[in-house]
C-alpha cells in the first residue's frame, strides 16, 4: 500500500514542479475553446444547436484529461531513459503495485489539469446548467483519466524509445480526440463516422460530461458509465500485463 502511495505522490510532486508544462498544455485546448467556440458560434446557433461554447467546453475538458493522462503513462519512456524505471523494477514490490501507483498518480494529475481547464472554461463564459450534476461530471473526468492513464502505461511499456511517439500521437491520440464527438454533435453523422465514434472510448466520456454539465447527452448516462467502466478494467488489465513484460 505504501508503495502505491509513494509512487502516486511522486507523480504529484513532478506535476506541481513543472509549472511551464502545466500552462503550456492548456494552450491547445484553449485555442479549441476560444477559436472554435466563438468562431463556429454563429453558424452553430443558426443551425439550431444553441451556444457552441457551451457545447464544446465539455469536449475540451475531456481533451485535457485525455492528453494529460495518456502522456503521464507514456512518460514511462522517460523513466526508462533516465533510468529511474530500473529502480522501481528491482525493488521488492510486485510490479502490479508499481503500475497501479503510476496509473493512479497519472489519473490524479489529469484530474487536476482537467479542473484547471474547467476554471478556464468558466472564465470564458461556460456555465454548467445543473450544479447538482457537477459531481457526476467529476466522476466522468475520473473515468476518462483512469482509462487513458492505463492505456498510456500499456503504450509506454511496449515502446522501446521515443521513435514510436509521433506514430502514437498522430494515429492514436489525435484520432481518439477528433473521433470522440468532442467538437461535433453525434446526431445525423454519416454511417461510417457514426460507427467509428462509437468505438472510441472517449466518446462516452465526453458524452457523459455533456450530460452532467449541460444536460445534452446522446447516449444514456448509464451506457456512458458502463462502457467506460468496462474499458477501464480492460485497459488496466492490458497496462498491468504490458508492464509486467518490461525488460531492462
Amino acid at each position, binding site marked *: 500500500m*505504501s*508503495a502505491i*502511495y*509513494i*509512487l502516486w505522490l*511522486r507523480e504529484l*510532486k*513532478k506535476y506541481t*514542479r*513543472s509549472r511551464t508544462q502545466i500552462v503550456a498544455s492548456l494552450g491547445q485546448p484553449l485555442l479549441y475553446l476560444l477559436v472554435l467556440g466563438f468562431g463556429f458560434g454563429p453558424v452553430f446557433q443558426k443551425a439550431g444547436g444553441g451556444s457552441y461554447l457551451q457545447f464544446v467546453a465539455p469536449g475540451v475538458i475531456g481533451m485535457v484529461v485525455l492528453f494529460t493522462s495518456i502522456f503521464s503513462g507514456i512518460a514511462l*519512456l522517460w*523513466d*526508462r*531513459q*533516465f*533510468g*529511474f*524505471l*530500473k*529502480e*522501481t*523494477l*528491482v*525493488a*521488492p*514490490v*510486485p510490479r502490479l503495485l508499481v503500475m497501479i501507483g503510476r496509473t493512479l498518480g497519472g489519473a490524479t494529475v489529469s484530474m487536476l489539469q482537467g479542473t484547471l481547464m474547467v476554471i478556464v472554461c468558466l472564465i470564458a463564459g461556460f456555465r454548467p446548467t445543473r450544479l447538482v450534476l457537477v459531481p457526476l461530471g467529476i466522476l466522468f473526468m475520473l473515468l476518462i483519466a483512469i482509462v487513458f492513464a492505463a492505456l498510456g502505461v500499456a503504450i509506454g511499456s511496449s515502446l*522501446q*524509445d*521515443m*521513435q514510436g511517439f509521433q506514430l502514437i500521437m498522430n494515429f492514436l491520440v489525435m484520432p481518439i480526440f477528433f473521433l470522440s464527438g468532442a467538437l461535433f454533435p453525434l446526431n445525423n453523422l454519416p454511417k461510417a463516422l457514426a460507427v467509428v465514434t462509437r468505438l472510441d472510448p472517449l466518446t462516452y466520456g465526453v458524452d457523459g460530461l455533456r450530460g452532467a454539465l449541460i444536460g445534452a447527452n446522446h447516449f444514456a448516462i448509464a451506457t456512458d458509465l458502463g462502457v467506460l467502466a468496462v474499458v477501464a478494467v480492460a485497459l488496466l488489465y492490458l497496462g498491468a500485463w504490458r508492464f509486467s513484460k518490461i*525488460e*531492462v
Partner: protein
Amino acid sequence: MIRVEHVVKKFGDFTAVDDISFEVQTGEIFAFLGPNGAGKTTTIKMLTTLLPPTSGTMELNGLNPAVQKEEVRKQFGIVFQDPSLDQDLKAWENMELHGVLYSVPREVRRERTEMLLKLFDLWERRNALVKEFSGGMKRRLEIARGFLHTPKILFLDEPTLGLDPQSRNQLWTHVKSLNETEKVTVFLTTHYMDEADRVAQRIAVIDHGKIVAMGSSQELKERTKTESLEEAFLVLTGTSIRDESASATDRMRQMAQMWRKR
C-alpha cells in the same frame, strides 16, 4: 553469500554468459572484470532477478533469484551502470522513495538517510533537485541509496565510470568502510584495474562469457607473470578492441541529450 553454478545465458544464437561458476563469501569484496560485452552486466542482471538464466543454478543468501524474486530483492542493493535516480525529485526524496519501496520503517529511514547523506557529503544538498547535481554527486547519492535498506549484498556495476580520481578515491573509501562496519558483501564490476586491485579481495576475469581466471590480485599477477593487474588483465583477455552495438537505451540517451540542449 552468492553461489553461481554452470550458468548460461543465451539471447537467440548469441551466448552472452557461457557456463560460469563462482562463489562469493559473506563480507567479501568481489570484483568482476572483463572487456566490454564480456557478460558482466548480464551476470549482474541475472543475479538481481532482472533476467532469467537459460540454464544453471544461482543462489543469493540461500535464495534463487530466478524464482524467489521478491525475497531476493530484499537482500541486495544495486547501483546500475547508468543512472537510476529521479532527476525531478530532491536528493532526500529519492532516498525516501527508496526506503518506502524497501519497507524500511520511518524512523530507521530518517536515521539512515541522514547518516548516509552525511557520509557521502550530500547532507547540505538534501533539498536540491537531483538534476542540479554533478555527475559525481549523483553517483554518490545512488550508492548512498543502495545502502539505505541495509542490504546483505551490494552490486556495483561500474560505479565510478566518468568520475574524477578524487571522487573515485573517496567513493571507494566509503564503500570499504561500510563493507567493514555493516558487513555487506560487495560485488563490483569496473574497468579501472587500480580500483579492483585496491578494494577487491578476490577478482574474476570474464571474457566472451567465460571466466578465464579467478583469484586475488596477487595470484592473478603471479599466474600471468606480470607486474600489475592491468597487464595481467591484458594477458588474460587479449588486446583487441570490443565493440558493442548501440542498444535502444543508448539511442534514447542520444535523443535526450538533443532535447536537453533545446
